[in-house]
């Protein structure tokens, strides 16, 4: 190892999202309290903090209140407070407002915010505490010594498409750390490797995900009230086929945040979440909010929503996993930011104690899990541990069983087993429902005013990738892919990817092949999750590449 390219730190945090930054902030506080003078580094693959952050977001602020000083909390860049909260059941033409919603889904008093902005703010608070935050650096590799984590290595750059070193080649930097905290967000690349190497999922159910797509609009005055919150379910989703729904939030300055999320456990290989959102926007109850407005930003991310039972063991020797990477999302409210903050604080306490005792072993770090079990992560996730599982049975049966769970603190008979999302996909020949394209054939021409094709949407994500690099989306076995994914599943990736990364190319002889437009990728990781046969592996491209979210 070239010593020039190696740096050391006490704690390395991978990912500057809410979990990583909360870990850093609280860790700096804990170190100060216990009189430890230690180095904390945070590295982030986005080209700036917040660039890869996307959330609704209606925030439960309790955790941030605990994390920050009163003054810091007061200065949080919230957009506005929720002023009304309605849940709509949409039919093809109409809408029915539920007269009530389950208390667990109530949002009154919560804040609407852009998580991009919150993270940028948290980064300044971390920096003020002496934490070093480095944006624009990507990692794909965990460093081990004697089978224990000792750090990570940033990726080599200046390598061409074929993997050959170019004149501007730069070897990645090895970062040695006594403790690594993985806060990579949903489907973290390193967390995935770690879970597999140490079998951290052995006692957990499979993790299941939703794909959420968000748009930010500027609309004429009067289209929507500031602080107005609408959640929708029903149309255009089929209650027995897809689980999900949409949201519309009125922001200040006549901005509207809207999003649409669908569980990736659907069976239809031609289902297209991006297109479904465009169909949803055409519904009169949604279109009215956007009338004569303009799209400002677009983004997509996946959400781990398996709940408590799908969480991995979040620690082993020298390493912890926090936030989305560990599946910490409260269902059915679909809220994870406050749990990410809480996880960061729990991790910080455990790490501080471990370093004080000079013991970073798995045993020492099990304190992290103890703290989680005493925190709101447990109290908000455990009672709903079976929610997502019963919902695989459809909205009506699932909804009934969920109702029972509300009375039994989550216990439920006949709970179906969760399975991986990619297993849920059916082959084209075996899918018996009406394919997505058929269901909405009259609604899939996009006018580029209200509705957009994927490439146009991608433009609004600001995504960019250096063309001179190995493609970051690995098709694990090309022949197998051709046989299974293309022939049997109709190249389902062209539909499930919200960013037009995958093109089902048909050449002049009619031969089908896959073309990958990696430059469109918005880092949502749906392909890594949903590709049948786990055929695609999402690796991290060069640091600084990817979307450039400003206010999502």
């Amino acid at each position, binding site marked *: 190892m070239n010593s020039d390219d190696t740096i050391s730190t006490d704690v390395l945090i991978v990912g500057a999202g809410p979990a990583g930054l909360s870990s850093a902030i609280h860790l700096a506080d804990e170190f100060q309290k216990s009189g430890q003078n230690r180095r904390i580094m945070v590295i982030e693959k986005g080209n700036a903090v917040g660039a890869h952050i996307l959330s609704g977001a209606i925030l439960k602020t309790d955790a941030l209140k605990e994390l920050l000083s009163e003054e810091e909390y007061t200065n949080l860049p919230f957009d506005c407070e929720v002023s009304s909260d309605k849940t709509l059941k949409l039919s093809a033409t109409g809408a029915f407002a539920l007269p009530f919603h389950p208390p667990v889904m109530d949002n009154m008093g919560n804040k609407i915010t852009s998580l991009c902005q919150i993270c940028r703010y948290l980064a300044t608070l971390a920096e003020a505490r002496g934490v070093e935050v480095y944006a624009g650096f990507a990692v794909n590799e965990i460093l081990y010594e004697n089978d224990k984590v000792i750090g990570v290595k940033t990726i080599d750059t200046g390598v061409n498409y074929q993997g050959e070193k170019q004149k501007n080649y730069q070897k990645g930097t090895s970062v040695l750390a006594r403790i690594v905290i993985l806060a990579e967000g949903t489907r973290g690349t390193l967390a995935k490797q770690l879970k597999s190497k140490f079998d951290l999922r052995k006692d957990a159910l499979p993790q299941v995900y939703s794909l959420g797509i968000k748009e930010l609009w500027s609309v004429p005055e009067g289209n929507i009230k500031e602080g107005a919150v609408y959640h929708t379910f029903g149309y255009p989703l089929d209650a027995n086929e897809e689980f999900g729904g949409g949201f519309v939030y009125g922001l200040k300055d006549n901005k509207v945040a809207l999003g649409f999320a669908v569980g990736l456990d659907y069976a239809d290989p031609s289902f297209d979440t991006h297109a479904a959102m465009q169909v949803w926007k055409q519904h009169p109850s949604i279109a009215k909010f956007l009338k004569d407005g303009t799209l400002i930003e677009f983004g997509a991310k996946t959400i781990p929503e398996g709940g408590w039972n799908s969480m991995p063991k979040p620690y082993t020797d020298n390493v912890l996993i926090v936030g989305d990477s560990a599946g910490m999302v409260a269902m059915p409210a679909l809220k994870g930011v406050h749990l990410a903050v809480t996880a960061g604080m729990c991790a910080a306490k455990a790490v501080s104690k471990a370093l004080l005792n000079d013991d970073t072993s798995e045993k020492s770090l099990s304190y992290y899990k103890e703290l989680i079990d005493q925190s709101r992560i447990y109290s908000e996730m455990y009672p709903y541990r079976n929610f997502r599982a019963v919902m695989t049975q459809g909205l009506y049966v699932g909804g009934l069983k969920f109702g029972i769970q509300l009375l039994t603190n989550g216990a439920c008979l006949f709970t179906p087993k969760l399975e991986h999302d990619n297993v849920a996909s059916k082959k084209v020949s075996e899918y018996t429902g009406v394919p997505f394209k058929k269901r909405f054939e009259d609604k899939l021409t996009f006018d580029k005013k209200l509705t957009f094709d994927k490439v146009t949407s991608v433009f609004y994500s*600001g995504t960019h990738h250096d063309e001179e690099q190995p493609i970051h989306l690995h098709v694990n076995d090309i022949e197998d892919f051709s046989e299974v994914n293309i022939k049997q599943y109709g190249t389902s990736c062209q539909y499930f990817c919200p960013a037009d990364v995958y093109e089902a190319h048909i050449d002049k002889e009619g031969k089908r092949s896959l073309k990958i437009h990696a430059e469109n990728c918005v880092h949502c990781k749906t392909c890594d999750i949903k590709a049948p046969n786990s055929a695609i592996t999402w690796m991290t491209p060069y640091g*600084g590449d990817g979307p450039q979210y400003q206010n999502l």
Partner: protein
Amino acid sequence: MTTIISLMKQVPLPSQMRMGEDGLMDRTKAKSIINVDCSFALEAGLQLKSMMKGAKLIVCSMGPPSFEQSLKTAISMGYDEAYLLSDRRLGGSDTFTTGFALSRMLKHLGFGKGLNEDFIVVAGRQTSDGDTAHVPSQVAENLGIPQATFLENVEFKNSTIIARRIIEGGYQMLKLPIPCTLSFTPTGIPPRRPTLSGAVKARNTQVTVFNTDDIHLEDSQIGLLGSPTIVAKVSSIRSERAPIIMSQGHSGEELVKDLMKNMKSGKNSLEAISKKEAKKVEMPSDSEKVDFRNGASGILTWAEVANGKLSRPSLELLTPAVNLAHSLEEGTKVRTLLIGSNVQELAKELIYHGSDEVIIVDDARLQEYRILLFSSIFAQVIKAYKPEIALFAATTAGRELAPRIGVKTKSGVTADCTALEIGEHRDNKKKIVYAPILESRRPTYGESKLATIIGFVCPQISTARAGTFEVPKRDEEKEGLITPFTPELNEQDFVTEILETHRGEGGLSSLFEADVIVTGGRGALSDDMILIKELASALNTQGVKCEWASSRPVVDLGVCEYARQIGQTGKTVRPKVYIAVGVSGAIQHIVGMKESESIIAINKNAKESIFANADFGIVGEYEDILPALIKEVKNGFVFGLDKDK
């Protein structure tokens, strides 16, 4: 130990510049990046260091404190030290003043005192928000050192620099001594990514910030006060094109057939714009008219010689030169400076094309253009003839020569103009009308705006975009003077050697002479432009002069050579038929082709702005359309150009 000094500017990310509600580009919300050309220069500096035994790398910039962020990026790429000249008083500086201030900072750091120093200045060719390419030349002149601009890559060999310079239709290999200034196009080695260890180093490195007092700059030398040129006004560029006629059909064949029908039935070309009368300078009763020319008179142009022939842009230049002379006092002369070896015959051509007097410097050693010698000769001619206006074609040579001369004459330069007129400038505060004055107009980057730039020091120097003006009618009856001129040549100005000049087929001249240009944009790349080239060659087979070209992104991606780039930073062309394939129609591209007689746009995306600037449009995949079009061309369809024969 050699010091490599990289000059760098931070600019708004072009792709993030969005149209604001007032219709102007909103730069404030755009993220800032290192100017792309400058990032290539940063890499070139790092590459040079790797070829030397130890070199110190420093990076310098001038701008607001927010530029520190980019200077730190340079450190994280491997630079050792960073300097920023930052002062509110520098606001409003033109390129002349910017070059002057940067040079002063380098002198303050101990460079530029003599020719025996051991340093190299590297810089980007031009910035994306200025597009003038002046500053590298001006810094070289201010420091009194040799220069090479528009470089693709360099090598360090036997204590000299071997550089590959892009010229029209090819390249030139140059050998330069040290010290020297080198400017780079974004076509060489792409900038390396910072390393994390570098970023840690950058975090702990202090950027040294100077204000103007620190480097002893007087207020009269900087900002608006020190700038010889100012932006007098900015106006919108209007489109005079009739609405587009779109083709209808369900297949490539049908769409092409419909296009043929449309082109036959309705000629949808550019309306002729009536020529404006030269403005009469009217004197308001309470204003004082100031003629700042101080006896300077006449227009001087440069006749560029390539391969023993006059370059077409130099002939084009005589059109505005003659027009300007007509707008000025009677008897105002158009003089042309012709430098070369055995160029007597060419002098006559210049007269036939409108020049009143050709000043000839005929010297065997001056066969090829060399910046140090040519700029020195120009300065001597300007001193002898005192022209009020000097014009250069904005070729790769003209774009480095004009700013170097502009430093010698202290008059600054307006780059890349598309219109040149005589007007007046009112200073209402001082109640002064400056007249007559040269109004140089140029489109400003990323905006559908035309800026008018004026200068108050003679000669007023402008470069005119190649292809913007027509070549004047040749008239063998016309008479004029041919005057030999013997300049004093300094042996030191021969230090840069030309090792090799390579001018290939295609590129600049054939683009200007083509009747049809087929341009491939980012949306026509999936076959490496094979179909584009096939269409061009099919037309050539039919006896139509046709060339292929590309838009800027395609050149930036390295798919096409820079010489074939159409647009603001490339070439302006006006063929009879312009076929834009997969070109999105960014304003930077439009300004380079909007004067074409007929424009045909082919794009799969109906919303692309190219359709708002074309006469005939086809929405569809170019892979479907072009084969059908090529087939029709092979059957004899030549876009109506057969009528001209």
